[in-house]
């Protein structure tokens, strides 16, 4: 292949990855360069081991630095951040597993729970709310910008409030917009001199159930999981298969008794559960006695109860749904327990 053609292909690879897929620009440049190199190498006669070896070493370095080391640069700076608990108390997040929970994490790892359970709440789309505040001087310009936005996107003013925008107060311009519309609204309003605030809301099957906005929600978390949540996991057991429900937020959904009964016999909570019984975590002193949890089972449940990551708002993953909307109450009678377990259907 000629130099010119391979250069064009490299340019194509670089620009596709930058403009269409939004890669970090040095990475896109690197990708383009190496695509050029790779296509250019097609000219090389591959009869010497050194040609092969040289090309392979180059590719290995690109792969290692482009995927792993670059990610490490970005993630190694993760620190505690301040967040709020459900009742409004502020604390530093994430909290490392305390006491028995660290031992429980080892039990979780040794028993291979990760073979059937994920620990990652995902989202499928985002919905954006745009709010604006205008001063007295630029009120007319902001109102015109808002109506221009409504005309352009075909969206209606919510309750007509936006057009009667009072000066000095936050006013919702649009709710539930997609990224393109929200950025249009932000640009128009900001150009007219308004203060603009954009809020992100995640949508997806994993997230909280909501009759209007998220009717298929499984109540697995109030927000999606992000890298910050796994700062102290050794290692993060993200999982890739959901034969059972996601456990990233299990500590907020289940209480100790429910978890114990699931471990002893999963079919007590859900009749067609595919989860195997974990009898080895329980011991029986005498034949007629009820089976008592071992130290391992207690630690495992401690660990599971400590998994509440998808609850707390973070800068990169805000929470928009109230915690109490459809959460089971912490202590439930057995009859209620069956009800509250319903939203967590196993699998997809």
């Amino acid at each position, binding site marked *: 292949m000629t130099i010119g053609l391979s250069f064009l292909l490299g340019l194509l690879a670089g620009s596709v*990855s930058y403009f269409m897929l939004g*890669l970090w620009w040095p990475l896109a440049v690197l990708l383009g360069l190496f695509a050029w190199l790779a296509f250019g190498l*097609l000219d090389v006669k591959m009869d010497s081991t050194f040609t092969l070896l040289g090309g392979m070493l180059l590719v290995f370095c690109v792969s290692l630095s482009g995927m792993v080391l670059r990610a490490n640069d970005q*993630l190694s700076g993760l620190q505690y951040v301040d967040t709020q608990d459900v009742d409004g108390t502020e604390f530093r997040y994430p909290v490392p597993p305390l006491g028995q929970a660290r031992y429980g994490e080892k039990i979780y*790892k040794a028993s291979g729970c990760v*073979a*059937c359970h994920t620990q990652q709440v995902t989202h499928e789309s985002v919905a954006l709310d745009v709010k604006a505040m205008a001063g007295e001087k630029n009120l007319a310009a902001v109102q015109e910008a808002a109506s221009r936005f409504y005309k352009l996107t075909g969206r209606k003013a919510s309750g007509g409030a936006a057009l009667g925008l009072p000066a000095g107060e936050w006013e919702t311009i649009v709710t539930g917009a997609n990224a393109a519309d929200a950025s249009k609204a932000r640009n128009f309003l900001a150009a007219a001199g308004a203060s603009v605030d954009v809020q992100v809301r995640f949508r997806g099957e994993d997230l909280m159930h909501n009759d209007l906005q998220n009717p298929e929600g499984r109540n697995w978390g109030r927000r999606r*999981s992000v890298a910050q949540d796994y700062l102290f996991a050794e290692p993060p057991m993200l999982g890739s298969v959901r034969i059972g429900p996601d456990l990233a937020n299990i500590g907020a959904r289940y209480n100790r008794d429910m978890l114990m009964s699931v471990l002893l016999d999963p079919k007590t909570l859900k009749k067609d559960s595919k989860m195997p019984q974990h009898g*080895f975590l329980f011991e029986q002193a005498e034949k007629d006695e009820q089976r008592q949890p071992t130290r391992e089972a207690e630690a495992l449940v401690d660990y599971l109860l400590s998994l509440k990551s998808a609850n707390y708002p973070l800068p990169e993953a805000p929470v928009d749904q109230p915690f109490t909307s459809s959460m089971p109450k912490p202590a439930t009678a057995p009859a209620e327990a069956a009800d509250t377990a319903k939203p967590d259907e196993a699998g997809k």
Partner: protein
Amino acid sequence: MSSEPKEDVAKQDPREAVDRSCRGPVLFLAFSAVTWLLVYSVFAMLAGVKVHASGMMADSAWLAYGRIQPASQLALQFGFLVQLGLAVSAWILSHRGKTVLVDGGYLIFGGMLWNIGVTLGFLGILTGNASGLEGLQMPGKVLPLLFFGFVLVGLSIVQTNNRRTDEEMSPAQWFLFAATLWLPWVLAGSYLLIHFFNAKGVMANIVDWWFIQNFARVYLTFVGLGTLFHFLPALSGRQLMGRGYAQFAFWVMLLFGSVGGVGPGAPVPAWLPALSTVSAVFYFFGVIAVWVSLNQTISGASAADTADSLAYNLMRLAALIFISMGVLNVFFAFPGPGSVAEFTTYGPAMKLLFNLGFIGLILVAALYHIFPSLAGIDFSPKMTRIQTTAIVFGVLGATLPSALGGLMSGDAVLGSGFYFASLGDLLLLAGSAILFLNFLGAILFSIKNCGCLAGICCRGEKKEANA
């Protein structure tokens, strides 16, 4: 050999000399691989049964589903595929290069280390020392052992390739040579990053995904393709067409197969899933190039020798599976379809189809071809037919229903998918058991027949006779 007079060496059929140098090492690796396949199918069957009968064996911790399942994956990938891949690579590289296998002893010693490593890893997972990751599920302490085992085997293979008669390398040689070097690099890199530098938080998962991607898309794929590029032309008696396409495929698949593998919803910076989509799309161009080259080579051809028609047809089936999986992979690499398939049984089913339906079938077919020339005796033809049928239908039965069930995502469908998958597991178990017996029987028979044992005992007498 050095003691023999030179005229004798010249008179010998060179192929025979090559085969003699390969015999011990290749058969050793192949036999341990077949044993690990049996171990895999037993444990995969057990894991499948545990999904249906949740109370079964509930009191023994080491038979928990979460331990059996990753242990069986280890047996399949590191026990069966890697070892049979090495055996076939050694044979092809020495035959292609028209040279004897250099330092076959390294191959045996390295293979022993590798087997010890896989066994320790297997027992480690069963006793609850798994690392908690998915690609490198074995305890971290086993990895250096695996690394040194592989490096010893690789030393022999790389030296053999360097001693080739023709200077120019053929596509089969590029692919096998690159695969042999690639795995130790990736293994060492991931070990250092995860266990030595203690990757923090999701970095451990990113390194693990990087390893999975390199292991499957580069290492295993290159072993499979190298074997195809050698055997499809060789068995059909044709020349490999489209060397340029093969060269294109080699570099494109190496570059884009070595990055990516991150799911669309993973809790990592968003550029990683995007990068995975890009690399999957470009990787597909490599798959197309392979298809063009192989299609030009074998369209309308059949096996030149009827004895090889089974191996030839198995390889064609595996090539077909490779192409169809390439199309599916690029489709599900896009975020939309990808998030439908993510977290369902589609993922593990496709992984199994890749491992056994593509790589496994190719390597078993290659074993059918090379075994007679090494052992001096063929597998029993009847048993071979039965075991091949059982393995092919077992693979399809264990994967397709659960892949479909995963995509449909209905609970009822998922359940029935599991039952079909267990039927597939059962067939697979039967197939691998017969393959194991077949192998063992043929070896025992050939030892008894050729008087090799007698040869070992009476070496002194022979020397006297020669003198």
